[in-house]
Structure formats: structure tokens, C-alpha cells
């Protein structure tokens, strides 16, 4: 069963057509890649999916129900979460607090607002911080961390939220190359151990070829190619798009 189904999505800003007639599908439990040169409309597609702006036409279905008219927090509460290209964390709170407030808000009512956090939450926060290697920094302000560490924290916060589908916008950008293998490993473990379906935007070809089982390639706002990593990598249109030929 497909977890996310985008059909014929179009979006333009003023006169610029950012997405035209894009259809992609993310099956449950898989890692799907989304690639394309700069300005090809990848982030716009992400934003359309998670509700940052309305679609001009087309539909977005998550687990069978239409979400293209919902607003951001509603979609997030369904279990469809995204991370940001420019990493966003709560800078003036400590890492642990960042984690604690990232618990899922699916079934919360007014009573939960004023309740103290249960010990399981603390335990889980510590565990996930350990998972991304930030345990020793847990009492520091998140804003004082380095960019790469913030990126890891954001990833840990996303995991804390128990999403069903996680949209990652360039998870390895700005991360020390020596740590990238570790991150790929963690992404795979998140998928295998926590059962989170992933849709990943990535520029680093080595990473995406290593990670994704199926890849979509965008160029100039249109879907250019799709298929398994090898076939996309060898697709002449994809190579042309990346090398700037038209």
C-alpha cells in the first residue's frame, strides 16, 4: 500500500512554474529519493506536501486520505513530518528540552498541556540523543551547537515524534564528510528499526545511491525520470540535466 501519493501536482509562484504535473508515490516502509539540480522544484514539492502553501492543482493523499487542504500542524499530527534545508531547532532551549517538546501531539488534549512529562519521555529523549551521538551535549543550548550537530538534533527530534513518513530535506548538507557514512547508517536504521518511511531530497549522489531504493528526478519543475538508482544514474536525460544541457 502506498503511504504517500502525489498526483498531478502543479504549483507556480507569480509567473514561475515551480512544479508541473508531478506524480510521485512513496510505498510504506521504503526509502525513496528525490534528486534534481538546484531550482528544479524539490523543496517546493516538499512544501506543497506538508502544507506550506496551497497547490494550484493536483492532489496529495497520505495513507489514503486527501491532505492538500489541511494546514501544517494538522498534517504533522497525522504522522507526516519534514525537516528543513536550513536546519530549524529551538535555539534557546537545551537539547533535552528540544527533544521533550517533540513528542507526538496526535492524541493530546487540554489535560496533557499542563501535565509534567512522564519519565518514559525522558528515557526516550536520552536514548535518541545517544542514537545520533549528542548525548554528552544534552544540557547545552541547541543554538550553541555546530551546524552539523543541529542537523543531527533536528533528525533526532523528528524521530522523537514517531512519524510514519519523514521528509528529509538534504540531511547531509553541511555535515562533515567523515560523519556522512554514520548518518546514512542511522537513516537506514531509522527505516529498519523504527519502521519510518523516508522521502529524502539529496544532492550528494553517493549518499542517495547508497540509501534509496527508488529515485525520482526533477528538472525545471517537471518529473524527468524515475526508477532504481542504477537506471536513474545512467539515464541520459538525468546526466544532461545535471551537466546543464537542455
Amino acid at each position, binding site marked *: 500500500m502506498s503511504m504517500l501519493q502525489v498526483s498531478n501536482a502543479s504549483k507556480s509562484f507569480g509567473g514561475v512554474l515551480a512544479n508541473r504535473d508531478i506524480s510521485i508515490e512513496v510505498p510504506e516502509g521504503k526509502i525513496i529519493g528525490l534528486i534534481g539540480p538546484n531550482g528544479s522544484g524539490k523543496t517546493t514539492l516538499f512544501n506543497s506536501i506538508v502544507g506550506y502553501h496551497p497547490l494550484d492543482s493536483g492532489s496529495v493523499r497520505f495513507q489514503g486520505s486527501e491532505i492538500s487542504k489541511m494546514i501544517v*500542524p494538522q498534517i504533522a499530527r497525522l504522522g507526516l513530518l519534514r525537516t528543513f534545508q536550513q536546519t530549524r531547532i529551538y535555539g534557546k532551549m537545551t537539547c533535552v528540552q528540544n527533544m521533550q517538546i517533540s513528542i507526538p501531539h496526535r492524541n493530546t488534549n487540554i489535560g496533557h498541556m499542563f501535565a509534567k512529562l512522564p519519565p518514559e519521555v525522558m528515557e526516550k529523549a536520552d536514548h535518541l540523543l545517544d542514537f545520533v551521538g549528542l548525548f554528552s551535549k544534552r544540557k547545552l543550548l541547541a543554538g550553541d551547537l555546530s551546524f552539523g550537530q543541529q542537523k543531527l538534533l533536528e533528525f533526532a527530534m523528528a524521530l522523537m515524534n514517531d512519524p510514519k513518513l519523514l521528509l528529509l530535506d538534504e540531511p547531509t548538507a553541511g555535515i562533515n564528510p567523515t560523519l556522512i557514512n554514520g548518518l546514512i547508517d542511522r537513516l537506514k536504521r531509522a527505516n529498519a528499526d523504527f519502521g519510518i518511511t523516508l522521502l529524502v531530497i539529496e544532492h550528494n549522489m553517493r549518499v542517495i545511491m547508497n540509501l534509496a531504493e527508488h529515485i525520482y528526478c526533477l528538472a525545471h519543475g517537471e518529473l524527468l525520470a524515475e526508477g532504481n538508482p542504477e537506471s536513474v544514474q545512467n539515464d541520459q536525460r538525468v546526466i544532461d540535466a545535471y551537466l546543464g544541457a537542455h
Partner: protein
Amino acid sequence: MTRNRKYVFYGLIFVLALAAPFLAPDYQTQLAFLWLMILFALTWDIMGGQMGYNSFGNVVFFGIGMYTTAVTQRNLYFEVEQYVSVSGLVDAVTPSQYVTGMFLGMGAGAILAVFIAFILGIGILGLRGHYFAICTLGLTIAAGETAGGIDYIGGGSGMVAPVFPLALGEKGIFFYYVLMTLAVMTFVVFQRLYSSQFGLAINAIRDDEDKAEAMGLHTTRYKAVAWCASAFFLGAAGGATGNLVGFIDPLDVAFAGSTFGVWMVLMAILGGKGTMWGPVIGAAVFHITQELFWTYLFGWQRVALGALIVIIVVFFPKGIMGFLHHHWPQLFGQTVDEASSSEREGKA
């Protein structure tokens, strides 16, 4: 150990606070106002400091509480038309009537303030940043001007609260304890709120509201609760203050945007916004400074206050607590935990 020390500290402050009006009998009214200022700073800080919604409009709820209480007291014991003529008499109301009327009015004022905060919040809390700040500024002045046009509550010439029925010397003590109770209640309730999920959520909204929304937080709900909590205590405090001052002017006392409305912002910033004790310290420092201005700068004190605002904002924007925080972050528990992850596994 540290926990014990903390309770001793709280206990000492509490005893000192209880004894204060007897230690300095000449300054009872000023001390009562000190508690009001602390309440102001705390109720502003829940919005501006903890949640990042810089409001110039909180004073609206103060005014609502003030008017509600005065109207309640008037309508309980007087015919509305007759009220004007009896308000000057000392024995116009009996002490028990006075107290009943005042507390009923404060309750009604607090509830009405929460209700209005909720209604206004639906529209206004969706605004961000400076739009919110300026919208709330407009709200304050609109409220004052509107109140000044309604004859039922005295119009532009204001309204008089019933005269305190006991000897004047007891008035200061009475209001000192009323306002102290309110301020301490505010502190305790807010401290409890901040230690729950609510506290984390409003901090998250302050740091990055878009991110909080993207993580599925019910941001609107949290913002409304913070705004209403602030309105509740301001409404109640407004009722008491109206009786303490005795004369309710729509623009200078009730909806005093350019005095109380700005002071609450300033006190929180001076102490350090977004901290528990910052607003309290800031309120104390500011109130004392302000009283000194009033004493020594006769005529020019308001000019000096304007200058003080600029100086604090420009040169001391992080406040006292922010200064401490910057220089000694470890005091606030921000340390690198040397315990490696393997040790943690061992402990578990």
C-alpha cells in the same frame, strides 16, 4: 541539599514580604504597588518573554478588571443614578459590603478578562512579530478611547471606586496583602505552568513557531492559554488596584498604555525576559528607580522615565538575568555532560 536551601530562600522572602508593611509603615502604598509591578512583569513575561509574543495590549485586561470591579461594587449597593452623590461619603458602604463587592468584582473582572482575551485571541494571536506588537498597541488605545466614550462607566471623566470604609492607615495594609496574594499566586501558578509541557511548548513557539507547527504542536491552543492566564491575573489585579487608587481614569489609570503598558515590558526586559525570577527582580529595581524619580525629579520624572526606557532597551536588552546567564551559564545547568553514552548504558 540544594532543594532545602531553595525552600529556606523562599521562606525567608515570604516572611520578609509578610512583615514588610510593618517594617516600613510609611511606604505601604508604594510596597503594594511593588507587588502590582511584579504581577505586571510576570504576566507580560509569559507572553513576551516565554512565548515571544511582545504585547503592548496586556494592560487592556487590567482595565477591564478595574472597570468590572467598580461597576460590580456600584451596582450591588447603589442605584446607578444615586451613586454620584454618595461616593464622597466615608460610610457609604459597610466594610463587609466593601470587601464582598470588591472580591466579587475581582472574580467577575478576571473571568470577563479571560473571556475577552479568548475572543480577541482568535483574531490577534495569529499575527506574528511586530504586527502583533503594534496591533496590541492599537488595541490598548482603542480600549481606552472606547471606555472614555461610554457614559455608563463615567465616560472620559472616569469613575470613582467606593471609598475605603476603614481608617486610611489600614487601607495600605489591606491592599498590600491583597496584591501580594495575587502576585504570589501568579508566581506559583506560572512556575507550575512553566514546569509542564506548556512551558516547553511556549518556549518552542518563541524560538521558532514555524518549526513548532511543523512538529504538530497545537500552537494556537498554547498561545490562547498563555494569553488567558495573563488576562486572568491582570483582571483580578485591576479590580484591586482600582479600589486602591480610588479614581479610575480611562486613559491614565485603566488602559494606561504609555505608562503601565510599557512599564510591564520594560520591567521584564530589565530583569531578564524568559526567566522566572527576572521579571520579579526587574520589577523591584524599576519600581524603586521610578519612585526615586518621582521624589527627586519633580516635574521631569516622566521625561526621565522615557529616557530610562531608551537606555534599558538600547544598552541593557538582555537584562540582569541575561547578564548572569551570559557570564555564568553553568549556574543555569548548561554544562557538557562528561558521562559518555556507554556509562549511561551501564547505569541503566
